[in-house]
């Protein structure tokens, strides 16, 4: 026991502190309360992600030994696959729509109803309600609304005596419908973030600006928006991460079609990785998605902290 070459005092100190923690009754909670979370997390989150990195270098169907090492082949194939390009491009379009359509809409609504009155609360609940609906249910509702025989477009085309327009099956419009549905479903969520931030803006600042004769627009631009910039950054971050993971909504609406033009990264992963059990290929897509998320997270951190330190 004492034959180790480690310096004695350190070991003694370590043992002593463990003994002290035991005496204080601290060891038991550490060894009883932490393991469930750590074990579950390791088995179902960390291990699969590490595995994804490993599998992505093999060609494998998920059965038998993992032997067919192909190096970066999966990634090379991925980067050449036009449908993957399309799904990246779609994610990019979703990000742009979230930033330049959804967030402004959410901000406009937040500015209109952030004060605490009962009418405002009612509007807030209405705008936020789509957020808690299941994506699948939302997709089904909107696939009815956009159905060429039944929904909105059917009414419009019939009214003008035009040919029926199946926008969900039309390459020109299909992805626009997905953008519409996503804005519809999530703008209330961003609005709630903005409302919480706006309510924490100190009212004396706003009163001071008013007394100085600033117009409402100037107060919004020069007082309110700068003061809640952290919430805007956070909301943009959520919008980007959300856009990268869209899946459930696409399935009932277009199922990735027509001719694979409306895939998101995750639906691409699902169809070309999991459904066809291309474990290596699917893992490679997962690794790409992982890096996109990490880049977004670091970008957000730099933006949020960098600006914060400058102030």
């Amino acid at each position: 026991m004492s034959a180790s070459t480690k310096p004695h005092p350190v070991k003694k100190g370590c043992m002593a502190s463990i003994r002290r923690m035991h005496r204080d009754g601290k060891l038991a909670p550490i060894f009883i309360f932490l393991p469930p979370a750590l074990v579950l997390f390791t088995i179902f989150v960390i291990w699969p992600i590490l595995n994804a990195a490993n599998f992505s270098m093999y060609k494998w169907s998920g059965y038998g030994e993992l032997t067919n090492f192909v190096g970066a082949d999966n990634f090379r194939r991925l980067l050449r696959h036009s449908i993957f390009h399309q799904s990246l491009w779609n994610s990019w379009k979703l990000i742009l729509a979230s930033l330049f359509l959804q967030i402004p809409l959410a901000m406009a609504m937040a500015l209109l109803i952030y004060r605490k009155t009962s009418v405002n609360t009612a509007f807030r609940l209405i705008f936020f309600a789509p957020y808690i609906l299941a994506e699948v249910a939302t997709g089904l509702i909107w696939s009815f609304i956009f159905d060429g025989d039944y929904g909105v477009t059917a009414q419009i085309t019939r009214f003008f005596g035009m040919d029926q327009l199946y926008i969900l099956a039309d390459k020109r419009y299909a992805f626009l419908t997905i953008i519409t549905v996503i804005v519809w479903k999530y703008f209330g969520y961003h609005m709630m973030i903005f409302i919480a931030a706006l309510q924490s803006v100190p009212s004396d600042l706003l009163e001071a600006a008013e007394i100085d004769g600033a117009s409402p627009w100037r107060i919004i631009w020069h007082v309110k928006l700068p003061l809640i910039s952290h919430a805007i950054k956070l909301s943009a971050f959520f919008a980007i991460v959300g856009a990268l993971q869209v899946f459930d909504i696409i399935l009932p609406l277009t199922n990735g079609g027509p001719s694979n033009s409306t895939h998101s990264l995750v639906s691409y992963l699902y169809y070309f990785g999991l459904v066809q059990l291309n474990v290596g290929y699917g893992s490679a897509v997962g690794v790409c998605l992982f890096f996109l998320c990490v880049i977004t997270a670091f970008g957000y951190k730099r933006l949020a902290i960098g600006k914060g330190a400058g102030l």
Partner: protein
Amino acid sequence: MNVRRTSLISALARAAALSLVAALVILPLLATFLGGFKTVGELRTSPFSLPVSWNFDFYGKILNDGVFWTFLGNSLVVSLSSVFLTLLCSSMAAYVFAQIKFFGSGSLQSYLLLGMMFPFATAIVPLFLQVRDIGLLDNPLGVILPQTAFSMAFAIVLFRSFFRQLPKELFEAAYVDGCGYIGFFFRFTLPLSTPILATVGTFAFVQSWNNYLLPLIILNDRARYTWPLGIMQFRGEFLVEWNMILAFVSLTIAPALVFFLITQKYIVAGLTRGSVKG
């Protein structure tokens, strides 16, 4: 005079903007609900108006179909178990992090918080293999355990910051009276934490109740389907019978909306707690 007129105009513009957006939010939901009362023919000619006659057949057919209740029951089992496990595992872990200083605490916390960085879609293929190799395919546990694992990171953050705000004197007093860390957790910390338990629980519930991708890859047996899987299968069966599909959708979103109205306080608290404080 002029000032009053502009303020009147702006109030009207505000009301118009709010009503327009509210209508755009409500109309699809209303059309869905009403659509369940219409025949297919009527749905085709007037999808957005009130039904000519309220036909309860389609709703009735679904409610009398045992499969619908099986789906809901399965979802309920999965969601409630996920909520229970999430609350238990993450509150215990957060308690240790908030209450006890020990070597490695910081790195263990950063390790668990990695879970907030990426969506579980990144690893669905290996996750599927993992669940298969453990032998939990087609088993509710195959959904419950990963679901819990992925919602823990956020839950731990919320719990930890709440536990830190509880008065320190309380623990000192209890400790002097011979109450240990574990006893204190169950006798004092948890009962004092009902608001945060409700917030985390509501979030975990909504997440699990609405989850589609995870059950999709784990559950194959129709008898095990959660309702999002069931509804998609239903859609495949009743391709053109939109009234049946709309009735089915209405019956599943109705409880969600009621649940939302009851718990919205906690949902909003979770959102703002999680976001504004970073």
